[in-house]
């Protein structure tokens, strides 16, 4: 059997299906539902077996269309930084507020992607977010929590 990344992904999916199936069997159902033709765990159990079946087939059968990815050419650094910025954005948005975190997220993302036109970067972050926020909060009446703007007295 030829081992390639697709096979490894299939193996991971197989293991995931085993875990899913195990968890499906652990779902607590009501006592009167235990022997019913269908209860809360029936469908997940079928799904678990389906996952085992398809990933098992993919593992066993030959793979003529092997996908080869040149990892050396991939931009892991920038992608990783972008994901990290998004995680920090997610972690701070509720505490700091929508306006400041979103503006900083955009500004930092432009910077790490190689942009250096500072004025454009500024306009496409702070005023852009302010305008978008006005559309959501002011026009569409969608509530946006913002402790920072509340602190400086912009938002009530």
């Amino acid at each position: 059997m030829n081992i390639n990344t697709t096979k490894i992904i299939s193996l991971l999916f197989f293991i995931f299906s085993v875990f899913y199936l195990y968890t499906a069997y652990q779902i607590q159902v009501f006592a009167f539902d235990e022997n019913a033709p269908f209860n809360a765990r029936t469908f997940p159990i079928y799904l678990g077996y389906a996952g085992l079946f398809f990933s098992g087939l993919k593992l066993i059968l030959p793979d003529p269309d092997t996908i080869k990815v040149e990892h050396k050419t991939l931009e892991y650094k920038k992608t990783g930084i972008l994901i990290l910025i998004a995680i920090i954005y997610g972690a701070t948005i509720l505490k700091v507020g929508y306006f400041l975190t979103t503006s900083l997220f955009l500004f930092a993302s432009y910077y790490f992607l190689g942009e250096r036109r500072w004025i454009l970067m500024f306009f496409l972050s702070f005023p852009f977010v302010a305008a978008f926020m006005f559309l959501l909060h002011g026009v569409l009446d969608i509530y946006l929590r913002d402790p920072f703007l509340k602190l400086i007295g912009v938002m009530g």
Partner: protein
Amino acid sequence: MIEGILIGLTTALTFKNIFMVMIGCFFGTIIGMLPGLGPMTAIALMIPITYGFDPATGLILMAGVYYGAVFGGSTSSILLNAPGVPGTVATSFDGYPMAQQGKAGKALAIAAWSSFAGGTLSAIYLLFLAPSLSKVSLSFRSPDYFALMILGLTAIAAFSSKGQFLKAMMMVVLGLMLASVGQDSLSDITRFTFNNMNLTDGISFILVVMATFAMSEALTIILKRNDPTAAAKQVSLTELGSIRINKEERGKMYKTIPRSSVIGFLIGVLPGAGATIASFLAYGMERNLVKDEEKEKFGKGSINGLSAPETANNAACSGSFVPMLTLGIPGSGTTAVMLGALLGFGIQPGPRLYMTNPEIFWSVIMSMYIGMVILLILNLPLIPYIARILAVPKNYLIPLILFFSITGIYVMSFNNFDIYLMIGIAVVATFLRLYDFPMPPLILAFVLGGLMEENLRRSLLLSNGSWEFLWDRTLTVCILATTILIVLWHIYKTLKKNKS
């Protein structure tokens, strides 16, 4: 019926109602364009306003918002590969590649004309077939729905990409697994939440779409380190925003539109099916019907591949009004919101709606056609301006896609967990994309997961746990036979390819 049509025309053609359709279309287009804010959000926002009007005007306004948002969703699918509406996911398969090839204006024009034609044809079908169509949809039972969903998932897996059937089926299972997270709809028992309260309501559809399409697309662009000319191409395509469709392209659309409108309308009529299944099925069917030469272009910017889902999703929008108005069963999530609004007006939709409130039933049907005309007049001249979104260089476009995705999720739930979950799914999806695991089957499976379980539950309970329900009814057998044929045909094609 003639009397009803005249009542409908009289109501729909009043200045106030035409104005409402225009406002609805315009508002809907803007909201629909923002990824994450689909027609459900737009209509939900409109409900308090509609209570100030009479029921017919209120429903006409919401119908306008619905069509506008679906078209707006197509726009963001084509320009940003960020479908804000489930029904326009299939639009991005060929719309986005066209935009990347510098044909953003053309793709938007094809979407606009296809939407218009699909909506117009389905409004005509609706006009003449509504009374009898409700009987057809009534004849569908749970086993038929279950079989239909199996067919839809198998078809999308078989047609998603060449030689990737098993990968696509793995994605189908993964989509269904993701859909099973949260409370069981009948017993309220929580499943796969691992005591995390944020997962009790399940994973939001928009979150999964944003993660697997918009966000993972943005990450893939960065990860794959696009060649230096890509940025130049990106800029030049915005300068080539031609919306002209040539004779050859029109010829392709003439063939695609009628058949896609029929499938879209029929799927839309089925309660619970709606625009998403219609667009996926129309896409799959079209790929199956075109010549081999055109088939190769699917997923790379095919005219047929763009026109088919666009026609079907608009046709399905009209079709989904049939079960809602005649049976009181919403055909889609959006019509479910509208059903809630109707109940708020004190109107109980059902077979008696014809008799008790004919002005509502027929004026909505007539306003659908008027809405289509307005949408075309409104959107076609605006296409060059809409296409300007792509003038943003990639260094700005990618953070903006991430921003729209995260904002879309944030305004829906206001919690950090959903953002982390979205990032997690996006990272996994990016990795899977590298190895050609297709995402569309995952999305369709995720949408159908709940419905599929519900129909399997009903079927198994009615047959006392026996699987005989699969061959008890002729309709179920026919649908399942079609599914088996698709699988056999796919195996035959794969074996033939391997031999050659």
